[in-house]
């Protein structure tokens, strides 16, 4: 006899919500829990400020003097500020997937998978909490850039910057979760994380414009979501910054990539416990 899931009577005391309501509720429940943990232990975020500081204060200063990279009327440090924000968000997000391996080893993931929460909500909840971690980097970069007298935009554009930071963080953390679901062990994951970060960073418009790249690299950079994030951040963050692809195009591409990655990762998610 075939059984239709829809024929099951709702449980006593639990009004059966629609999928979307459940999905959003569960996503925010998971993101909220991650944020509570983060609030108790903010030291982690401070240590993350070191790397972007090095890029801007050391690398940016030296390359700015060389004037080797054509950035038009914009000085080099101003050019690279949005790129370094995207990069530091990427570097945090790309190792975020290890949390799913930890949670598996602790048994927390098993409890989540046994709950009725949609797998997509489990993934997006994590992605959003990674997104909020990314926001802390925005604060760090704004402070550093102000110190370096970069002319930043402080208008309504800041909201746009926050949106693109969350979006980029969510994309790369979901990508990282997918990798974790495939490799399953911490050791392999760390190795692969290292391998992924640099190509994603260098094959993008983060620290040099697409125009100076050789053709093959430019093609790769155009397939790299980081380029669209940097493109939007450059227009929104610094005065004189312009987008190459258009803000709405950047946004649509990034949302599509995120949706695709969340769907794929949700499929892979139960793999971790096998």
């Amino acid at each position, binding site marked *: *006899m075939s*059984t239709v*899931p829809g*024929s*099951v*009577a709702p*449980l*006593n*005391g*639990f*009004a*059966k*919500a629609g999928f979307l309501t*459940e999905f959003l*509720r*569960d996503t925010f*429940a*998971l993101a909220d*829990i991650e944020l*509570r*943990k983060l609030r*108790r*232990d903010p030291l982690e975020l401070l240590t993350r400020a070191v790397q972007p500081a090095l890029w801007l204060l050391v690398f940016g200063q030296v390359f700015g003097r060389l004037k080797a990279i054509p950035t038009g009327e914009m000085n080099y440090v101003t050019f690279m500020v949005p790129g370094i924000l995207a990069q530091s968000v990427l570097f945090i997000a790309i190792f975020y997937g290890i949390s799913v391996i930890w949670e598996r*080893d*602790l*048994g*927390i993931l*098993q*409890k*989540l*998978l*046994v*709950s*009725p*929460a949609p797998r997509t909500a489990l993934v997006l909840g994590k992605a959003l909490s990674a997104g909020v971690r990314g926001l802390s980097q925005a604060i760090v970069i704004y402070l550093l850039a102000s110190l370096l007298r970069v002319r930043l935009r402080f208008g309504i554009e800041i909201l746009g910057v926050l949106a693109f930071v969350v979006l980029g963080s969510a994309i790369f953390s979901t990508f990282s979760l997918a990798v974790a679901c495939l490799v399953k062990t911490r050791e392999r994951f760390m190795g692969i994380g290292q391998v992924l970060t640099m190509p994603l960073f260098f094959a993008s418009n983060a620290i040099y414009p697409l125009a100076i790249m050789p053709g093959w690299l430019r093609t790769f950079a155009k397939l790299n979501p980081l380029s669209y994030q940097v493109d939007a951040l450059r227009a929104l963050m610094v005065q004189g910054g312009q987008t190459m692809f258009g803000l709405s195009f950047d946004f649509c591409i990034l949302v599509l990539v995120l949706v695709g990655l969340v769907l794929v990762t949700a499929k892979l998610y*139960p793999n971790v*416990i*096998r």
Partner: protein
Amino acid sequence: MARVSPSEWTSRSNATQSFIDYVLKKAINNYPARLATPVMTADPSDLTRPTDTSERVPGESSLENQAPAIAVETLGLTRCFGPLTAVDTLNIAVTTGSIFGLLGPNGAGKTTTIKMLTTMLAPTAGSAKVAGLDIVRQAVEVRRRIGYVSQMLSADGGLTGYENLLLFARLYGIARAKRRDRIINALQFMGLGEAERTLVRNYSGGMIRRLEIAQSMLHRPSVLFLDEPTVGLDPVARHAVWQHLHELRTQFGTTILMTTHDMEEADELCEVIAIMHRGRAVAVGSPSSLKMQVGADADLDDVFIHYAGGAVDEGGGLCRQCPDPSHH
């Protein structure tokens, strides 16, 4: 008096056999093309349906009944990992409201069985129903009706006891208005009322285990799965957990399926136990009936060694019966 001729005897015996076949077929009506033979070696009467065969009409779909007499039922449940058969045509049935123990040495397939029944892992072959629902086709509905406590002490140390429960209260869709009361009640029920705002990293092992049981009960599941619930706990903490499990069952009528290799625990808690060895249930029955079968003075340790210690299942381990390798 009336003598039965050999031919008559045979035909009667055939009739009995046909009747048994008929009942069996009826019972597995919903599950086409599997269930070779029941795997157990013990007396068939106390095998798959330990205490209440009469309560269940064979062939009746438990789905139509919100409280089926059988809370968990597996039919030829099998799981292979590559060439290894972790669970091998397992047939068990757990009566609603009872505490059922899966015993067996490490690697016997207990945890894999729990993983399949809690929908974490798909079976390679066979099927199972939990709370009357198919674990594969109705996985999400099964998840709403079960609670699960894993082998590891798995609460989140960075959160308070309350927050650990809050997450799951939300995920299980407990209405906002009821959430706080439900969580506080669960914590108090498990004797953790005072530790509500303490970070779980400061809990003892026994407290974490009680917190996990509180979490697994928040949504009032009809079936609770416990994977070695007292492993690594000191005797006091162990007894506290046992006491709470007894209370849970009495107060909420929860069916409990637990794995353990602690004989004392099985004796203390379980009405029925199945001894697993190399993925099969090699004996099923009440602790007392199993002890009787092994010997007059036997304890559960003897039963365990008798069934799982020797060469009970020669040739096990190889995946001879994996019907569909694509599921690996």
